[in-house]
Protein backbone atom coordinates (compact mmCIF):
# COMPACT_ATOMS: atom_id res chain seq x y z
CA UNK A 1 0.00 0.00 0.00
CA UNK A 2 2.71 2.45 1.07
CA UNK A 3 4.78 1.26 -1.86
CA UNK A 4 1.91 1.97 -4.25
CA UNK A 5 1.42 5.49 -2.87
CA UNK A 6 5.13 6.19 -3.17
CA UNK A 7 5.11 4.85 -6.74
CA UNK A 8 2.23 7.07 -7.83
CA UNK A 9 3.58 10.14 -6.02
CA UNK A 10 6.97 9.63 -7.69
CA UNK A 11 5.35 9.13 -11.08
CA UNK A 12 3.19 12.25 -10.66
CA UNK A 13 6.24 14.39 -9.96
CA UNK A 14 8.08 12.79 -12.87
CA UNK A 15 5.22 13.47 -15.30
CA UNK A 16 5.22 17.11 -14.21
CA UNK A 17 8.97 17.29 -14.75
CA UNK A 18 8.59 15.83 -18.24
CA UNK A 19 5.88 18.33 -19.14
CA UNK A 20 8.17 21.16 -18.06
CA UNK A 21 10.93 19.70 -20.22
CA UNK A 22 8.50 19.45 -23.14
CA UNK A 23 7.55 23.10 -22.75
CA UNK A 24 11.15 24.16 -22.56
CA UNK A 25 11.59 22.89 -26.12
CA UNK A 26 9.33 25.66 -27.36
CA UNK A 27 9.91 28.78 -25.21
CA UNK A 28 8.49 31.17 -27.79
CA UNK A 29 5.18 29.36 -27.69
CA UNK A 30 4.94 30.06 -23.98
CA UNK A 31 5.89 33.71 -24.41
CA UNK A 32 3.18 34.20 -27.04
CA UNK A 33 0.55 32.67 -24.78
CA UNK A 34 1.66 34.79 -21.87
CA UNK A 35 1.31 37.96 -23.94
CA UNK A 36 -2.16 37.25 -25.35
CA UNK A 37 -3.58 35.85 -22.13
CA UNK A 38 -2.38 38.75 -20.03
CA UNK A 39 -3.93 41.15 -22.50
CA UNK A 40 -7.23 39.25 -22.61
CA UNK A 41 -7.73 39.37 -18.87
CA UNK A 42 -6.63 42.93 -18.40
CA UNK A 43 -9.07 44.04 -21.11
CA UNK A 44 -11.81 41.97 -19.48
CA UNK A 45 -11.08 43.57 -16.16
CA UNK A 46 -10.95 47.07 -17.63
CA UNK A 47 -14.42 46.45 -19.08
CA UNK A 48 -15.78 45.70 -15.60
CA UNK A 49 -14.15 48.83 -14.27
CA UNK A 50 -15.84 50.86 -16.99
CA UNK A 51 -19.26 49.28 -16.33
CA UNK A 52 -19.05 49.77 -12.57
CA UNK A 53 -17.82 53.33 -12.86
CA UNK A 54 -20.45 54.31 -15.41
CA UNK A 55 -23.41 52.59 -13.83
CA UNK A 56 -22.43 52.50 -10.14
CA UNK A 57 -22.14 49.32 -8.12
CA UNK A 58 -23.14 45.90 -9.53
CA UNK A 59 -25.98 44.74 -7.30
CA UNK A 60 -24.43 46.44 -4.29
CA UNK A 61 -20.89 45.19 -5.08
CA UNK A 62 -18.35 47.96 -5.39
CA UNK A 63 -15.56 47.93 -7.91
CA UNK A 64 -13.02 46.89 -5.25
CA UNK A 65 -15.17 43.97 -4.12
CA UNK A 66 -15.62 42.78 -7.68
CA UNK A 67 -11.85 42.92 -8.15
CA UNK A 68 -11.49 40.59 -5.17
CA UNK A 69 -14.15 38.21 -6.55
CA UNK A 70 -12.68 38.35 -10.04
CA UNK A 71 -9.15 37.67 -8.77
CA UNK A 72 -10.28 34.76 -6.60
CA UNK A 73 -12.12 33.20 -9.54
CA UNK A 74 -9.15 33.66 -11.85
CA UNK A 75 -6.79 31.87 -9.51
CA UNK A 76 -8.82 28.64 -9.48
CA UNK A 77 -9.36 29.05 -13.22
CA UNK A 78 -5.58 29.10 -13.71
CA UNK A 79 -5.01 26.10 -11.43
CA UNK A 80 -7.69 24.11 -13.23
CA UNK A 81 -6.04 24.88 -16.56
CA UNK A 82 -2.63 23.84 -15.29
CA UNK A 83 -3.92 20.57 -13.87
CA UNK A 84 -6.92 19.56 -15.94
CA UNK A 85 -6.64 20.91 -19.48
CA UNK A 86 -6.56 17.36 -20.87
CA UNK A 87 -10.15 16.88 -19.63
CA UNK A 88 -11.23 19.43 -22.26
CA UNK A 89 -10.83 16.98 -25.09
CA UNK A 90 -11.34 13.43 -23.85
CA UNK A 91 -13.10 12.65 -27.14
CA UNK A 92 -10.11 13.68 -29.22
CA UNK A 93 -7.71 11.77 -26.99
CA UNK A 94 -9.91 8.70 -27.25
CA UNK A 95 -10.26 8.91 -31.04
CA UNK A 96 -6.51 9.40 -31.46
CA UNK A 97 -5.98 6.07 -29.67
CA UNK A 98 -4.08 7.61 -26.76
CA UNK A 99 -6.21 5.67 -24.30
CA UNK A 100 -4.93 2.43 -25.81
CA UNK A 101 -1.46 3.49 -24.76
CA UNK A 102 -2.62 4.10 -21.21
CA UNK A 103 -4.26 0.68 -21.12
CA UNK A 104 -0.97 -0.95 -22.15
CA UNK A 105 0.87 0.46 -19.12
CA UNK A 106 0.80 -1.22 -15.72
CA UNK A 107 -0.64 1.88 -14.13
CA UNK A 108 -4.04 3.28 -13.25
CA UNK A 109 -5.62 4.78 -16.38
CA UNK A 110 -7.30 7.75 -14.67
CA UNK A 111 -3.99 8.64 -13.04
CA UNK A 112 -2.17 8.54 -16.36
CA UNK A 113 -4.88 10.62 -17.92
CA UNK A 114 -4.81 13.29 -15.21
CA UNK A 115 -1.03 13.56 -15.17
CA UNK A 116 -0.38 13.22 -18.88
CA UNK A 117 -0.36 16.93 -19.50
CA UNK A 118 0.80 19.36 -16.86
CA UNK A 119 0.02 22.49 -18.76
CA UNK A 120 2.30 25.48 -18.49
CA UNK A 121 -0.08 27.66 -20.51
CA UNK A 122 -2.02 27.76 -17.26
CA UNK A 123 0.83 29.75 -15.75
CA UNK A 124 -0.01 32.53 -18.17
CA UNK A 125 -3.49 32.62 -16.64
CA UNK A 126 -2.03 32.50 -13.18
CA UNK A 127 0.01 35.65 -13.56
CA UNK A 128 -2.90 38.03 -14.35
CA UNK A 129 -4.91 36.16 -11.71
CA UNK A 130 -2.33 36.89 -9.05
CA UNK A 131 -2.07 40.54 -10.08
CA UNK A 132 -5.82 41.14 -9.98
CA UNK A 133 -6.27 39.16 -6.74
CA UNK A 134 -3.53 41.11 -4.93
CA UNK A 135 -5.03 44.34 -6.24
CA UNK A 136 -8.48 43.24 -5.03
CA UNK A 137 -7.15 42.27 -1.60
CA UNK A 138 -5.51 45.64 -1.22
CA UNK A 139 -8.65 47.47 -2.34
CA UNK A 140 -10.95 45.69 0.15
CA UNK A 141 -8.21 45.69 2.85
CA UNK A 142 -8.40 41.91 3.19
CA UNK A 143 -6.94 40.89 6.54
CA UNK A 144 -4.49 38.02 6.20
CA UNK A 145 -4.79 35.93 9.35
CA UNK A 146 -3.97 32.25 9.77
CA UNK A 147 -7.69 31.49 9.51
CA UNK A 148 -8.28 33.53 6.37
CA UNK A 149 -5.13 32.19 4.70
CA UNK A 150 -6.19 28.60 5.33
CA UNK A 151 -9.70 29.43 4.15
CA UNK A 152 -8.42 30.94 0.88
CA UNK A 153 -6.27 27.86 0.28
CA UNK A 154 -9.22 25.55 0.96
CA UNK A 155 -11.41 27.57 -1.39
CA UNK A 156 -8.84 27.48 -4.19
CA UNK A 157 -8.43 23.73 -3.73
CA UNK A 158 -12.17 23.07 -3.85
CA UNK A 159 -12.84 25.54 -6.66
CA UNK A 160 -10.14 23.97 -8.83
CA UNK A 161 -11.78 20.57 -8.33
CA UNK A 162 -15.26 21.90 -9.15
CA UNK A 163 -13.95 23.32 -12.43
CA UNK A 164 -12.06 20.13 -13.21
CA UNK A 165 -15.16 18.06 -12.47
CA UNK A 166 -17.29 20.00 -14.97
CA UNK A 167 -14.71 19.52 -17.72
CA UNK A 168 -14.21 15.87 -16.93
CA UNK A 169 -17.96 15.14 -16.75
CA UNK A 170 -18.77 16.88 -20.04
CA UNK A 171 -15.68 15.35 -21.67
CA UNK A 172 -16.65 11.84 -20.57
CA UNK A 173 -19.81 12.09 -22.67
CA UNK A 174 -17.48 11.29 -25.59
CA UNK A 175 -17.17 7.72 -24.32
CA UNK A 176 -20.81 7.21 -25.16
CA UNK A 177 -21.20 9.41 -28.22
CA UNK A 178 -17.82 8.31 -29.63
CA UNK A 179 -17.38 11.76 -31.06
CA UNK A 180 -14.93 14.54 -30.60
CA UNK A 181 -17.42 17.07 -29.21
CA UNK A 182 -15.69 19.87 -27.39
CA UNK A 183 -17.70 21.52 -24.64
CA UNK A 184 -14.81 23.54 -23.30
CA UNK A 185 -15.90 26.79 -24.94
CA UNK A 186 -19.39 26.60 -23.43
CA UNK A 187 -18.02 25.47 -20.07
CA UNK A 188 -15.54 28.31 -19.88
CA UNK A 189 -18.23 30.81 -20.78
CA UNK A 190 -20.65 29.55 -18.15
CA UNK A 191 -17.98 29.54 -15.50
CA UNK A 192 -16.68 33.00 -16.37
CA UNK A 193 -20.18 34.41 -16.06
CA UNK A 194 -21.00 32.68 -12.80
CA UNK A 195 -17.71 33.15 -10.98
CA UNK A 196 -16.47 36.60 -11.96
CA UNK A 197 -19.66 38.54 -11.15
CA UNK A 198 -21.95 38.40 -8.10
CA UNK A 199 -24.47 35.61 -8.56
CA UNK A 200 -27.15 37.75 -6.89
CA UNK A 201 -27.41 39.91 -9.99
CA UNK A 202 -29.09 36.99 -11.81
CA UNK A 203 -32.75 35.92 -11.50
CA UNK A 204 -33.61 33.63 -8.59
CA UNK A 205 -33.93 30.50 -10.70
CA UNK A 206 -30.42 30.96 -12.13
CA UNK A 207 -29.06 31.42 -8.59
CA UNK A 208 -30.74 28.15 -7.55
CA UNK A 209 -29.31 26.26 -10.51
CA UNK A 210 -25.76 27.44 -9.92
CA UNK A 211 -25.99 26.56 -6.24
CA UNK A 212 -27.72 23.20 -6.12
CA UNK A 213 -27.47 21.70 -9.63
CA UNK A 214 -24.18 23.00 -10.99
CA UNK A 215 -22.47 24.27 -7.83
CA UNK A 216 -20.40 27.01 -9.48
CA UNK A 217 -21.45 29.49 -6.80
CA UNK A 218 -18.98 27.73 -4.51
CA UNK A 219 -16.06 28.48 -6.82
CA UNK A 220 -15.82 32.16 -5.89
CA UNK A 221 -19.12 33.87 -5.19
CA UNK A 222 -20.14 32.27 -1.86
CA UNK A 223 -16.61 32.38 -0.43
CA UNK A 224 -16.05 35.97 -1.57
CA UNK A 225 -19.38 37.18 -0.20
CA UNK A 226 -18.57 35.48 3.11
CA UNK A 227 -15.12 37.08 3.27
CA UNK A 228 -16.57 40.49 2.39
CA UNK A 229 -19.76 40.19 4.45
CA UNK A 230 -22.04 40.57 1.44
CA UNK A 231 -25.49 39.10 0.91
CA UNK A 232 -25.24 35.73 -0.84
CA UNK A 233 -28.92 35.43 -1.69
CA UNK A 234 -29.48 32.36 0.48
CA UNK A 235 -28.58 33.73 3.96
CA UNK A 236 -25.77 31.17 4.12
CA UNK A 237 -23.63 31.69 7.25
CA UNK A 238 -19.98 32.67 6.89
CA UNK A 239 -18.70 29.12 7.35
CA UNK A 240 -20.13 28.38 3.91
CA UNK A 241 -16.51 29.02 2.84
CA UNK A 242 -15.64 25.54 4.04
CA UNK A 243 -18.30 24.01 1.80
CA UNK A 244 -16.18 24.75 -1.26
CA UNK A 245 -13.57 22.00 -0.64
CA UNK A 246 -16.34 19.58 0.40
CA UNK A 247 -18.39 20.26 -2.73
CA UNK A 248 -15.18 20.15 -4.79
CA UNK A 249 -14.17 16.72 -3.54
CA UNK A 250 -17.72 15.42 -3.97
CA UNK A 251 -18.26 16.55 -7.56
CA UNK A 252 -14.73 15.62 -8.59
CA UNK A 253 -15.23 12.12 -7.23
CA UNK A 254 -18.49 11.87 -9.15
CA UNK A 255 -16.83 12.97 -12.36
CA UNK A 256 -14.04 10.41 -11.83
CA UNK A 257 -16.67 7.70 -11.44
CA UNK A 258 -18.29 8.88 -14.66
CA UNK A 259 -14.92 8.75 -16.42
CA UNK A 260 -14.29 5.22 -15.18
CA UNK A 261 -17.78 4.09 -16.22
CA UNK A 262 -17.08 5.57 -19.66
CA UNK A 263 -13.76 3.81 -19.84
CA UNK A 264 -15.46 0.47 -19.24
CA UNK A 265 -17.81 1.32 -22.08
CA UNK A 266 -14.89 2.30 -24.30
CA UNK A 267 -14.29 0.23 -27.38
CA UNK A 268 -10.95 1.12 -28.84
CA UNK A 269 -11.23 3.19 -32.00
CA UNK A 270 -9.99 0.42 -34.30
CA UNK A 271 -6.90 0.93 -36.35
Amino acid at each position, binding site marked *: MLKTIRYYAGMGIYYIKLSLLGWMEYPMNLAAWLGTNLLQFLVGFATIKFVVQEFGALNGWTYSQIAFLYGLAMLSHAFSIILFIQTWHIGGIMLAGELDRFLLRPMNVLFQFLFMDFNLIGLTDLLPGVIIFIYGCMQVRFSWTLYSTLAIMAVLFGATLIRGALFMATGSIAFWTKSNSDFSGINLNIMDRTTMYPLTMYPRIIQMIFTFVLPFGFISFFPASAFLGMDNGFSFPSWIIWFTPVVGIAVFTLSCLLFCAGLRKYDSAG*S
Partner: protein
Amino acid sequence: MPLIKVNDLVKEYTVIKKGKGLKGALKSLLHKEKEILRAVNHISFSIQHGEIVGYIGPNGAGKSTTVKMLSGILSPTSGEILIDGLSPQKDRKRVVQNLGVVFGQRSQLNWDLRLGESFELLKRIYRIDDRQYQENLAMMDAILEIHKFIHTPVRQLSLGQRMRGDLAAAMLHSPQVLFLDEPTIGLDVDGKQAIRKFVKEINRLKQTTVILTTHDLGDIQELCSRLIIISEGTIVEDGSLSDLIDRIAPYRILHVELYEEAELPIHPLAEKIRQDGTAAVYRFDKKKVTAAQLIEDLSCFCKMKDFRLEEARIEDIIRAAYHKKEKLEGV
Protein backbone atom coordinates in the same frame (compact mmCIF):
# COMPACT_ATOMS: atom_id res chain seq x y z
CA MET B 1 1.42 -25.37 -20.07
CA PRO B 2 1.09 -22.96 -23.01
CA LEU B 3 2.13 -19.36 -22.38
CA ILE B 4 -0.86 -17.97 -24.25
CA LYS B 5 -4.18 -19.73 -24.32
CA VAL B 6 -7.17 -18.47 -26.24
CA ASN B 7 -10.40 -20.36 -25.91
CA ASP B 8 -13.53 -19.80 -28.00
CA LEU B 9 -12.94 -16.06 -28.34
CA VAL B 10 -15.71 -13.89 -29.78
CA LYS B 11 -15.84 -10.13 -30.34
CA GLU B 12 -18.95 -8.43 -31.63
CA TYR B 13 -19.45 -4.78 -32.50
CA THR B 14 -22.84 -3.15 -32.62
CA VAL B 15 -23.25 -0.87 -35.57
CA ILE B 16 -26.28 1.34 -35.99
CA LYS B 17 -27.54 1.14 -39.55
CA LYS B 18 -28.34 4.44 -41.12
CA GLY B 19 -30.68 4.95 -44.04
CA LYS B 20 -29.72 6.95 -47.08
CA GLY B 21 -29.93 10.72 -47.14
CA LEU B 22 -31.65 13.06 -44.69
CA LYS B 23 -34.84 11.01 -44.66
CA GLY B 24 -32.98 7.86 -43.77
CA ALA B 25 -30.98 9.67 -41.08
CA LEU B 26 -34.16 11.02 -39.48
CA LYS B 27 -35.77 7.61 -39.66
CA SER B 28 -32.83 5.97 -37.94
CA LEU B 29 -33.04 8.57 -35.16
CA LEU B 30 -36.53 7.38 -34.32
CA HIS B 31 -36.08 3.71 -34.97
CA LYS B 32 -32.58 2.44 -34.47
CA GLU B 33 -31.76 -0.53 -36.57
CA LYS B 34 -28.85 -2.29 -34.97
CA GLU B 35 -26.56 -4.63 -36.75
CA ILE B 36 -24.14 -6.91 -34.98
CA LEU B 37 -20.81 -7.39 -36.67
CA ARG B 38 -18.78 -10.33 -35.49
CA ALA B 39 -15.14 -9.36 -35.95
CA VAL B 40 -13.75 -12.43 -34.20
CA ASN B 41 -15.75 -15.62 -34.39
CA HIS B 42 -14.99 -18.47 -31.98
CA ILE B 43 -11.20 -18.46 -32.15
CA SER B 44 -9.07 -20.89 -30.14
CA PHE B 45 -5.32 -21.43 -30.12
CA SER B 46 -2.42 -22.02 -27.77
CA ILE B 47 1.07 -20.62 -28.08
CA GLN B 48 4.08 -22.13 -26.37
CA HIS B 49 6.91 -20.28 -24.72
CA GLY B 50 9.48 -19.09 -27.29
CA GLU B 51 7.38 -19.44 -30.45
CA ILE B 52 7.30 -16.85 -33.22
CA VAL B 53 3.81 -16.93 -34.62
CA GLY B 54 2.60 -15.05 -37.68
CA TYR B 55 -1.01 -14.06 -37.20
CA ILE B 56 -2.02 -13.24 -40.74
CA GLY B 57 -5.11 -12.64 -42.78
CA PRO B 58 -6.65 -10.13 -45.18
CA ASN B 59 -7.57 -6.61 -44.08
CA GLY B 60 -10.57 -6.64 -41.77
CA ALA B 61 -10.15 -10.31 -40.89
CA GLY B 62 -9.99 -9.55 -37.16
CA LYS B 63 -6.22 -9.56 -36.58
CA SER B 64 -5.94 -6.23 -34.80
CA THR B 65 -9.09 -6.92 -32.81
CA THR B 66 -7.55 -10.16 -31.56
CA VAL B 67 -4.26 -8.46 -30.66
CA LYS B 68 -6.15 -5.74 -28.81
CA MET B 69 -8.07 -8.32 -26.81
CA LEU B 70 -4.87 -10.23 -26.04
CA SER B 71 -3.25 -7.04 -24.78
CA GLY B 72 -6.21 -6.00 -22.61
CA ILE B 73 -7.31 -2.96 -24.63
CA LEU B 74 -10.58 -4.52 -25.74
CA SER B 75 -12.87 -6.83 -23.83
CA PRO B 76 -14.08 -9.95 -25.60
CA THR B 77 -17.81 -10.49 -26.03
CA SER B 78 -17.27 -14.05 -24.85
CA GLY B 79 -14.50 -16.57 -24.53
CA GLU B 80 -11.36 -16.71 -22.49
CA ILE B 81 -7.80 -15.43 -22.79
CA LEU B 82 -5.01 -16.49 -20.47
CA ILE B 83 -1.50 -15.10 -20.69
CA ASP B 84 0.83 -16.93 -18.36
CA GLY B 85 -2.29 -17.99 -16.48
CA LEU B 86 -3.76 -14.49 -16.09
CA SER B 87 -6.64 -12.75 -17.87
CA PRO B 88 -5.61 -9.47 -19.54
CA GLN B 89 -9.04 -8.07 -18.76
CA LYS B 90 -9.31 -9.03 -15.09
CA ASP B 91 -5.62 -8.65 -14.25
CA ARG B 92 -4.70 -5.90 -16.70
CA LYS B 93 -1.85 -4.34 -14.74
CA ARG B 94 -0.12 -7.62 -13.97
CA VAL B 95 -0.49 -8.92 -17.53
CA VAL B 96 0.82 -5.78 -19.26
CA GLN B 97 3.85 -5.76 -16.95
CA ASN B 98 4.85 -8.90 -18.86
CA LEU B 99 3.82 -7.65 -22.30
CA GLY B 100 5.43 -5.58 -25.02
CA VAL B 101 3.13 -4.18 -27.70
CA VAL B 102 4.09 -2.32 -30.87
CA PHE B 103 1.60 -0.97 -33.36
CA GLY B 104 3.18 -0.17 -36.73
CA GLN B 105 0.53 2.42 -37.47
CA ARG B 106 0.66 4.20 -34.15
CA SER B 107 3.62 5.00 -31.97
CA GLN B 108 3.58 4.23 -28.26
CA LEU B 109 6.24 6.85 -27.69
CA ASN B 110 5.60 10.34 -26.41
CA TRP B 111 5.84 12.81 -29.32
CA ASP B 112 6.99 15.70 -27.17
CA LEU B 113 9.93 13.88 -25.61
CA ARG B 114 13.31 12.87 -26.86
CA LEU B 115 13.60 9.13 -27.42
CA GLY B 116 15.89 8.70 -24.41
CA GLU B 117 13.45 10.60 -22.19
CA SER B 118 10.68 8.28 -23.33
CA PHE B 119 12.85 5.33 -22.26
CA GLU B 120 13.49 6.92 -18.86
CA LEU B 121 9.76 7.38 -18.41
CA LEU B 122 9.12 3.72 -19.24
CA LYS B 123 11.85 2.69 -16.82
CA ARG B 124 9.88 4.36 -14.05
CA ILE B 125 6.44 3.22 -15.20
CA TYR B 126 7.52 -0.43 -15.31
CA ARG B 127 9.77 -0.07 -12.23
CA ILE B 128 12.76 -1.49 -14.09
CA ASP B 129 15.85 -1.66 -11.90
CA ASP B 130 19.02 0.11 -13.08
CA ARG B 131 20.99 -2.98 -13.97
CA GLN B 132 18.26 -4.57 -16.03
CA TYR B 133 17.56 -1.24 -17.73
CA GLN B 134 21.19 -0.71 -18.70
CA GLU B 135 21.53 -4.31 -19.90
CA ASN B 136 18.40 -4.12 -22.04
CA LEU B 137 19.30 -0.73 -23.41
CA ALA B 138 22.74 -2.01 -24.41
CA MET B 139 21.20 -5.08 -26.05
CA MET B 140 18.64 -3.00 -27.95
CA ASP B 141 21.36 -0.63 -29.07
CA ALA B 142 23.48 -3.52 -30.32
CA ILE B 143 20.59 -4.81 -32.43
CA LEU B 144 18.85 -1.60 -33.46
CA GLU B 145 21.60 1.04 -33.23
CA ILE B 146 19.39 3.49 -31.41
CA HIS B 147 22.26 5.55 -29.99
CA LYS B 148 22.32 7.45 -33.29
CA PHE B 149 19.00 9.14 -32.57
CA ILE B 150 18.42 8.63 -28.85
CA HIS B 151 18.61 12.39 -28.21
CA THR B 152 16.25 13.33 -31.05
CA PRO B 153 12.67 14.34 -30.22
CA VAL B 154 10.33 11.52 -31.25
CA ARG B 155 8.34 13.80 -33.58
CA GLN B 156 11.49 14.38 -35.66
CA LEU B 157 12.36 10.70 -36.14
CA SER B 158 11.95 9.05 -39.54
CA LEU B 159 9.47 6.19 -39.72
CA GLY B 160 12.26 3.61 -39.65
CA GLN B 161 13.91 5.24 -36.63
CA ARG B 162 10.60 5.60 -34.87
CA MET B 163 9.81 1.91 -35.37
CA ARG B 164 13.20 0.94 -33.98
CA GLY B 165 12.57 3.24 -31.04
CA ASP B 166 9.17 1.67 -30.52
CA LEU B 167 10.62 -1.85 -30.57
CA ALA B 168 13.34 -0.96 -28.08
CA ALA B 169 10.75 0.73 -25.84
CA ALA B 170 8.60 -2.39 -25.90
CA MET B 171 11.49 -4.59 -24.72
CA LEU B 172 12.96 -2.45 -21.93
CA HIS B 173 11.03 -4.22 -19.19
CA SER B 174 11.99 -7.69 -20.50
CA PRO B 175 8.48 -8.88 -21.34
CA GLN B 176 7.99 -12.57 -22.00
CA VAL B 177 5.48 -11.83 -24.73
CA LEU B 178 5.76 -9.35 -27.59
CA PHE B 179 2.86 -8.38 -29.86
CA LEU B 180 3.81 -6.71 -33.11
CA ASP B 181 0.93 -5.34 -35.17
CA GLU B 182 2.22 -4.74 -38.73
CA PRO B 183 5.71 -3.74 -37.57
CA THR B 184 7.19 -3.42 -41.07
CA ILE B 185 4.38 -1.40 -42.65
CA GLY B 186 5.70 1.43 -44.77
CA LEU B 187 9.36 0.66 -44.12
CA ASP B 188 12.09 0.48 -46.74
CA VAL B 189 14.10 -2.73 -47.32
CA ASP B 190 16.76 -1.83 -44.72
CA GLY B 191 14.11 -0.91 -42.20
CA LYS B 192 12.31 -4.21 -42.71
CA GLN B 193 15.56 -6.12 -42.38
CA ALA B 194 16.37 -4.34 -39.11
CA ILE B 195 12.97 -5.28 -37.65
CA ARG B 196 13.35 -8.93 -38.73
CA LYS B 197 16.82 -9.15 -37.29
CA PHE B 198 15.49 -7.70 -34.06
CA VAL B 199 12.70 -10.29 -33.80
CA LYS B 200 15.09 -13.16 -34.44
CA GLU B 201 17.66 -11.85 -31.97
CA ILE B 202 15.34 -11.25 -29.04
CA ASN B 203 13.74 -14.61 -29.64
CA ARG B 204 17.17 -16.25 -29.59
CA LEU B 205 18.68 -14.27 -26.72
CA LYS B 206 15.68 -13.83 -24.43
CA GLN B 207 13.34 -16.58 -25.65
CA THR B 208 10.68 -13.91 -26.09
CA THR B 209 7.43 -15.25 -27.48
CA VAL B 210 6.39 -13.16 -30.47
CA ILE B 211 3.05 -12.81 -32.18
CA LEU B 212 3.14 -10.64 -35.26
CA THR B 213 0.51 -9.59 -37.73
CA THR B 214 1.80 -8.65 -41.15
CA HIS B 215 1.02 -8.49 -44.83
CA ASP B 216 4.68 -8.80 -45.75
CA LEU B 217 5.66 -12.15 -47.27
CA GLY B 218 9.28 -11.57 -46.32
CA ASP B 219 8.28 -11.31 -42.65
CA ILE B 220 6.31 -14.51 -42.96
CA GLN B 221 9.05 -16.49 -44.71
CA GLU B 222 11.92 -15.24 -42.61
CA LEU B 223 10.39 -15.12 -39.16
CA CYS B 224 7.37 -17.25 -38.55
CA SER B 225 7.90 -20.83 -37.50
CA ARG B 226 4.14 -21.06 -37.33
CA LEU B 227 1.30 -19.33 -39.11
CA ILE B 228 -2.19 -18.80 -37.81
CA ILE B 229 -4.30 -17.63 -40.73
CA ILE B 230 -7.54 -15.88 -39.96
CA SER B 231 -10.22 -15.02 -42.47
CA GLU B 232 -13.55 -13.37 -41.74
CA GLY B 233 -13.04 -13.81 -38.03
CA THR B 234 -12.27 -17.52 -38.00
CA ILE B 235 -9.04 -19.48 -38.10
CA VAL B 236 -8.60 -21.19 -41.45
CA GLU B 237 -5.05 -22.49 -41.04
CA ASP B 238 -2.74 -23.18 -38.14
CA GLY B 239 0.63 -24.71 -38.92
CA SER B 240 4.03 -24.11 -40.48
CA LEU B 241 4.47 -22.43 -43.84
CA SER B 242 6.10 -25.55 -45.33
CA ASP B 243 3.15 -27.72 -44.26
CA LEU B 244 0.84 -25.20 -45.82
CA ILE B 245 2.79 -25.25 -49.08
CA ASP B 246 2.85 -29.06 -49.08
CA ARG B 247 -0.86 -29.25 -48.64
CA ILE B 248 -2.15 -26.38 -50.73
CA ALA B 249 0.50 -26.48 -53.47
CA PRO B 250 2.03 -29.97 -53.54
CA TYR B 251 3.02 -29.67 -57.22
CA ARG B 252 6.00 -28.30 -59.07
CA ILE B 253 6.14 -27.56 -62.76
CA LEU B 254 9.00 -28.66 -65.02
CA HIS B 255 9.51 -26.84 -68.32
CA VAL B 256 11.63 -28.82 -70.76
CA GLU B 257 13.15 -27.60 -74.00
CA LEU B 258 14.45 -30.06 -76.59
CA TYR B 259 17.04 -29.70 -79.38
CA GLU B 260 14.68 -31.13 -81.93
CA GLU B 261 11.04 -32.00 -82.02
CA ALA B 262 10.29 -35.40 -80.51
CA GLU B 263 7.24 -36.89 -78.84
CA LEU B 264 7.88 -36.99 -75.11
CA PRO B 265 6.45 -39.94 -73.18
CA ILE B 266 4.01 -39.90 -70.30
CA HIS B 267 5.87 -40.39 -67.04
CA PRO B 268 4.17 -42.62 -64.43
CA LEU B 269 4.79 -40.05 -61.64
CA ALA B 270 4.35 -36.83 -63.58
CA GLU B 271 1.58 -35.43 -65.66
CA LYS B 272 2.39 -34.04 -69.06
CA ILE B 273 0.31 -30.93 -69.30
CA ARG B 274 1.19 -29.91 -72.83
CA GLN B 275 3.80 -30.11 -75.53
CA ASP B 276 4.32 -27.42 -78.09
CA GLY B 277 6.94 -28.37 -80.63
CA THR B 278 10.26 -28.51 -78.76
CA ALA B 279 8.77 -27.21 -75.47
CA ALA B 280 7.00 -29.49 -72.98
CA VAL B 281 5.49 -28.92 -69.55
CA TYR B 282 5.20 -31.50 -66.79
CA ARG B 283 3.49 -31.24 -63.44
CA PHE B 284 4.61 -33.52 -60.63
CA ASP B 285 4.02 -34.08 -56.92
CA LYS B 286 7.29 -33.21 -55.20
CA LYS B 287 6.72 -35.86 -52.54
CA LYS B 288 6.41 -38.63 -55.11
CA VAL B 289 9.29 -37.82 -57.41
CA THR B 290 12.27 -35.49 -57.33
CA ALA B 291 13.05 -33.11 -60.14
CA ALA B 292 16.41 -34.79 -60.70
CA GLN B 293 14.77 -38.21 -61.11
CA LEU B 294 12.22 -36.86 -63.54
CA ILE B 295 14.86 -35.15 -65.67
CA GLU B 296 16.99 -38.28 -65.68
CA ASP B 297 14.04 -40.43 -66.76
CA LEU B 298 13.02 -38.04 -69.53
CA SER B 299 16.53 -37.67 -70.91
CA CYS B 300 16.49 -41.36 -71.84
CA PHE B 301 13.97 -40.50 -74.53
CA CYS B 302 15.33 -37.28 -75.97
CA LYS B 303 18.13 -34.75 -75.91
CA MET B 304 17.32 -31.96 -73.53
CA LYS B 305 18.57 -28.47 -74.26
CA ASP B 306 17.30 -26.65 -71.22
CA PHE B 307 14.91 -26.96 -68.33
CA ARG B 308 13.35 -24.71 -65.72
CA LEU B 309 11.54 -25.52 -62.45
CA GLU B 310 8.56 -23.52 -61.33
CA GLU B 311 7.36 -23.38 -57.73
CA ALA B 312 4.01 -22.14 -56.51
CA ARG B 313 4.32 -18.55 -55.40
CA ILE B 314 4.01 -17.98 -51.65
CA GLU B 315 1.67 -15.11 -52.40
CA ASP B 316 -0.71 -17.38 -54.28
CA ILE B 317 -0.60 -19.97 -51.54
CA ILE B 318 -1.41 -17.42 -48.85
CA ARG B 319 -4.19 -16.03 -50.99
CA ALA B 320 -5.63 -19.48 -51.50
CA ALA B 321 -5.58 -19.99 -47.73
CA TYR B 322 -7.37 -16.65 -47.18
CA HIS B 323 -10.11 -17.81 -49.49
CA LYS B 324 -10.27 -21.20 -47.79
CA LYS B 325 -9.26 -23.04 -50.95
CA GLU B 326 -8.10 -26.60 -50.48
CA LYS B 327 -5.76 -26.66 -53.45
CA LEU B 328 -4.06 -24.06 -55.53
CA GLU B 329 -5.26 -24.14 -59.11
CA GLY B 330 -2.87 -23.76 -62.02
CA VAL B 331 0.32 -25.02 -60.46
